[in-house]
């Protein structure tokens, strides 16, 4: 009985949260000043997102370093909350444009920020032409740890699962693994395979592989 109430409470909360997704503006207060700041989806944007120079690649070294740092954080945060794993430079990316101040990051700027992420292992270019970038808001090692925890929490130590089951199975729904990018997952799995924590084998169908855990 208690459980049902909790479920109802949780689901109503979630409903409220989801409803808030549709409001473009949310008011929040920091310090003693209140101001409105827009959102992207349910992602809260920082105030400097409306600062026009933020969208121009700064030439002065010190200023540039700060700018790059802020963009790196923002990109990672956004991708984490929105579960975005790949950014394609030539496509529109909501974070890279601000319609309120009518500014958009140039291609050069985007490449600069993503390359900075790649330099510290938080992203990876998928092609030489730098058109597509894999975002590692969790490092591969972190994903590996998450997988291990997932296996342990659900008692899958000696069982077998397919890759797709890990990605979209019921068990993974409450974890960050749900909807994970396939490339990232495979990398993490391969890392674990090297450590002997599991074995990857080809499944019956051509595009699905199976994992045997031996965590």
């Amino acid at each position: 009985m208690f459980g049902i109430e909790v479920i109802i409470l949780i689901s109503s909360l979630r409903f409220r949260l989801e409803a808030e997704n549709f409001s473009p503006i949310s008011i929040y207060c920091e310090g003693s000043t209140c101001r409105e700041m827009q959102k992207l989806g349910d992602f809260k944007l920082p105030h400097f997102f409306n600062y026009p120079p933020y969208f121009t690649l700064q030439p002065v070294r010190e200023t540039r370093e700060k700018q790059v740092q802020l963009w790196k954080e923002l990109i990672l945060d956004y991708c984490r909350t929105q579960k975005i794993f790949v950014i394609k430079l030539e496509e529109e990316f909501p974070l890279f444009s601000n319609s309120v101040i009518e500014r958009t990051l140039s291609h050069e700027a985007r490449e600069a920020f993503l390359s900075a992420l790649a330099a510290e292992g938080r992203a990876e270019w998928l092609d030489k032409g730098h058109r597509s970038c894999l975002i590692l808001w969790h490092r591969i090692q972190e994903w590996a740890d998450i997988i291990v925890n997932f296996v342990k929490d659900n008692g899958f130590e000696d069982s077998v699962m397919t890759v797709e089951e890990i990605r979209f199975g019921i068990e993974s729904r409450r974890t960050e693994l749900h909807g994970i990018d396939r490339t990232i997952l495979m990398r993490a799995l391969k890392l674990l395979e090297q450590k002997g924590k599991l074995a990857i084998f080809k499944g019956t169908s051509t595009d699905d592989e199976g994992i045997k855990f031996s965590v």
Partner: protein
Amino acid sequence: MSNFFSKAEVTSSGRPVFIHNEVECHLLSGVDLEPEDHHHFTPLKSGILILTTHRLLWLHSSSASAIPLAAISHIFSSRKSLKSVFHSPRIRFQVLVSPDGRLFDPGSGSGSSSGSGSRSVVVTAVIRGKGDCDGFLVKFWDSWRARAWESNETSGSGSGSGSGSGLASGSEAGTGTGGGLYSSDGSLRMVGVAGILRKEQQMWESTDKSLQDAFQDLNALMSKAKEMVMLAEKMRQKLLSGTSSQTSGTNDEDMGSKEEMQDWLLSVGIISPVTKESAGALYHQQLSRQLADFVRTPLERAGGMINLIDAYCLFNRARGTELISPDDMLQACSLWEKFDVPVMLRKFDSGVMVIQNKSHSDEEVFARIKSLAAKPEALRNGMSPTDAAMSLGIAPAMAKEHLLTAESKGLLCRDISPDGFRFYINLFPEIDPLNIYFVKDYGMCSTWIKAVSTSG
């Protein structure tokens, strides 16, 4: 009947011999002279009619006849009738005829003008050739009315030295070759347009000659100068070799004399050999000082900083004729650091060179820029170089340089958009990357946020 007209002399080349002060006025070719009735003279056909200040001359194959203008009693104005459209133009005039049937000749002393020779004959000049007949007629009238021969007579009678009276002035008549070009003293005559041109030509020639004479001396000077320059070069080599051989400090006397040598060379205007230390040639020194004086006023007007190119234009304009080259300008400015002048040359990162007051303080400008950038309008929309120029009271190019320098110091940030190139106050230092949603209460960020949110 060819005796009717007065005699006119002709030179060996067929030009008429002009009498003293006679000037040719007009010429028509293909002219026939016809009397109103044939018993005065046979018509003269197809000659050249020359109008002068004194006579009408008719030339035909090296013989000439003359009608003194004094003998003309009337000139008929041209009748334009239907007939005249198809005929050749005609000039009709009336001449006085003396009792002997010949043309009245005032110069021959045969009585006074109006008394004798009461008879007159109408002569028609038929102009069959192409010529400006109307113009001729006008000049005819003018010459006839001017009565130039009368002043000639008075002056002629005044001088008793045999220049003759009236038309028969003797001096060239004797030579027979005189013609109209040369005056009595043998020098070229200066009359009419040709006279003016000749006068000018003479002036040019004399100037040229005197210049040449002057340059003769200069050439002598130049050759001496060459020797001097060679001497100076020798000195230079000696000095150079002297300084490079490092016997530093031991030979004070030597150093003293070397300095003397440098000063001497400098005063002569030759570049000193120890180029890094010396101030350069005297010319550049003087120019440099002059420039420093001159540039003070424009600097004030421009707010303390002026583009080198602008200064160059202004300076040259002020100098008027002795313009200096851009190289000279640059050298003059570079010399300022050797002197104690209140101005200096400054080069920005972008390559723009400016002249500014030494008292000009960058910090002061930055403080002003910062306060400008913190105004609500600038916080909302940024600052363009033009805005800054207007507020600071300087040229837009200078303002841009200042803004760029302020940016490089971290005071401003640039914003490049389709709207253009603008600068905002730099908020990045205030943002904490570990706490990006937090805004300090009294920092620049909160001021900015307030300014932005009021506009909506």
